[in-house]
């Protein structure tokens, strides 16, 4: 593989250039530019329908969307050419806004399959059953996920809060380099929010980065962003520091809409 855009000097983890994407012929992303360096936390905010979830799903490789233009470099790799599973192996993790229920597939089997697929990708042997269960136990503690949930089918019958905690638990197991949290705060009460955000913060390091997609400032009280971007009508229309989120909270989104 050749990496034409590998700008080592700038040490970018993610470099999104003029990304366009559409679904069923309708263009949703109309030229997104975004750069994320290791250790950074970026917040992407914006009104409903601005393309926030689409951006996260396109980065994760959801086949429902068609990329119609632009490129994405992920630590030296052409992200858009990778299958969703290889993006995962390379360290991209999406915490879904609406995690799907998969009846009949137990959480244990699911995580084991995911973890071992990643190990295989990097030429490692599958993890022993004992080590795996130990790991699961250890990671569950991070988000205070009940053991009972882990023995159930993936997301089936989970409450909204349990689903989000389960997402962060999976993030803990897979140890991604870039985590995209898509409206992880939606539908959470304050206690659940604290637990989820606490989990995210425990997993932060200088090497990994986080993109927090949110509608409200609330989550950013717990996960402090370095940069705040405002996505509107398929484009990032404004970028600033944490103060931008506060300003948005005060002035609402109409201000953005009027300006654009």
């Amino acid at each position, binding site marked *: 593989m050749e990496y034409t855009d590998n700008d080592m000097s700038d040490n970018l983890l993610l470099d999104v250039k003029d990304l366009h994407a559409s679904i069923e012929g309708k263009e949703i992303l109309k030229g997104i530019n975004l750069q994320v360096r290791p250790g950074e936390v970026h917040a992407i905010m914006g009104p409903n329908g601005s393309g926030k979830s689409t951006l996260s799903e396109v980065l994760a490789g959801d086949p429902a969307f068609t990329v119609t233009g632009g490129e994405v470099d992920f630590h030296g790799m052409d992200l858009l050419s990778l299958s969703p599973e290889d993006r995962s192996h390379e360290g991209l993790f999406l915490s879904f806004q609406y995690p799907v229920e998969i009846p009949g*597939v137990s959480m244990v089997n699911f995580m084991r399959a995911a973890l071992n697929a990643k190990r295989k990708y990097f030429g490692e042997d599958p993890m022993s059953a004992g080590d795996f269960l130990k790991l699961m136990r250890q990671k569950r503690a991070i988000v205070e996920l009940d053991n009972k949930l882990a023995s159930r089918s993936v997301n089936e019958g989970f409450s909204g809060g349990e689903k989000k905690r389960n997402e962060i638990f999976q993030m803990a197991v897979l140890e991604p380099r870039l985590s995209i949290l898509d409206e992880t705060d939606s539908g959470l009460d304050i206690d659940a929010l604290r637990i989820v955000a606490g989990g995210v913060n425990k997993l932060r390091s200088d090497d990994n980065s986080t993109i927090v997609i949110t509608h409200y400032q609330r989550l950013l009280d717990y996960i402090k962003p370095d940069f705040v971007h405002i996505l509107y009508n398929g484009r990032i229309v404004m970028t600033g520091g944490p103060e931008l989120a506060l300003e948005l909270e005060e002035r609402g989104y109409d201000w953005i809409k009027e300006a654009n």
Partner: protein
Amino acid sequence: MSSLQQYIDLYRDNHEALDRGSAPLLNAMRPAALKALEGARLPDTCDERSQYTSVEQMFAPDYGVNIARVNIPVDIAATFACNLPNLSTLMGIVVNDFFTPTSTLVNRLPQGVIFDSLRKVATEHPDIIEKYLNKIAPQTDSGVALNTLMMQDGVVIYVPQHVELAKPLQLVNIFSSPTPLMAARRLLIILEDGAKADVVVCDHTQDDAQQYLASQVTEISLGRDASLGLYTLEEASLRTSRYAQTYVKQHDNSRLNHHYAALATGVTRNEFTVDLIGEHAESLLTGMAIGMDREHIDCNTAINHRVARCHSNQVFRYVMGGTSEGVFDGGIVVTPEAPYTVAYQSNRNVLATAEARMHSKPRLEIYNDEVKCSHGATIGQLNEEALFYMRSRGIPAAEARVMLMQAFMADVIDTVGLESLRDRLRHLVEMRFSGQAATCRRCSEPTDN
């Protein structure tokens, strides 16, 4: 000319030899069967109950019948070397239609329990045969009558009152013949009041290249408070045809848990008829079909609620690949005499390839208003959203697909009452979905779980 005619002619020409190889009690039933076959025909695609499967055509080719009862040796070890590795059963083997008990079966069967050759039981316990054989299946049915006409032997499982079997009984049917062969197989399962048993039946073929046809009639009577778990696994070759008719009568408070798994087959037509004739009887009928190549899998059910306060549930799942064709025709009939009935049915199907076909016909016939009945049927694909979710966690698409197909079958497998059999079924299903031959005899090692 109806395909029945060749068997009628065969009988007329050879009835003395046929009778010689059987028991007088069974022979006495043949004239009535012959009469029932006059002008009769086997189900065909012009029949409402058999729109997509022509039994007539299954029986049309010229199969041999082993009337003279020539002994055909079979390498049993090679045929199912690792069958149910973790399940300890009392086993009997039927090669074509010859019954052979294993030594453990002979030595360890509890007092009073019979698991033996029909021919032998007909001589030793004529009372049982007179009371039950051909008393549960309708004698006017052409398939049943043909089976009665041609059967020379069969298997009887008899559990006396209040005897609960600790170990499952296992019946292994094997086809083996140097020439194309038709076998008329018979199974009679009687559980007297309060008796309890688990029975595993599996169908195998010795030689994939040979053509086989099974006419299988099973009659089951469950006494008051009796409980039967019956698990039928079909692991035959693509050249095997099977016409299996199962008739059940359930008395008060009896329980039936019948699971049918079509893991590998050629053309198979299964008719399940359950008559709930005692109050508070419960019937659970489940099935799973994995269709590949040009397999044709047809399940036809009729659960007849004839008295009040019975409970029935049917759950059938099909995953059809290759150019296979699946048929589910599921019936619930609630008679005017059956108030407070609870009857459910669910049939979900996945078409995994462009050429696979599925026909579903869930039927409700309800003649009184004190009922809780529902049915649902879907034909579709694996959940794309779930597939993406799994891939986004790093699980390769092919593996995710297998996991989803297994999950699709999970609730059916979960109904199986024997844990080791459940594990085995999960393994077989996984192998089948992974594109490996899943017939028991080919898997060299037990599962790693």
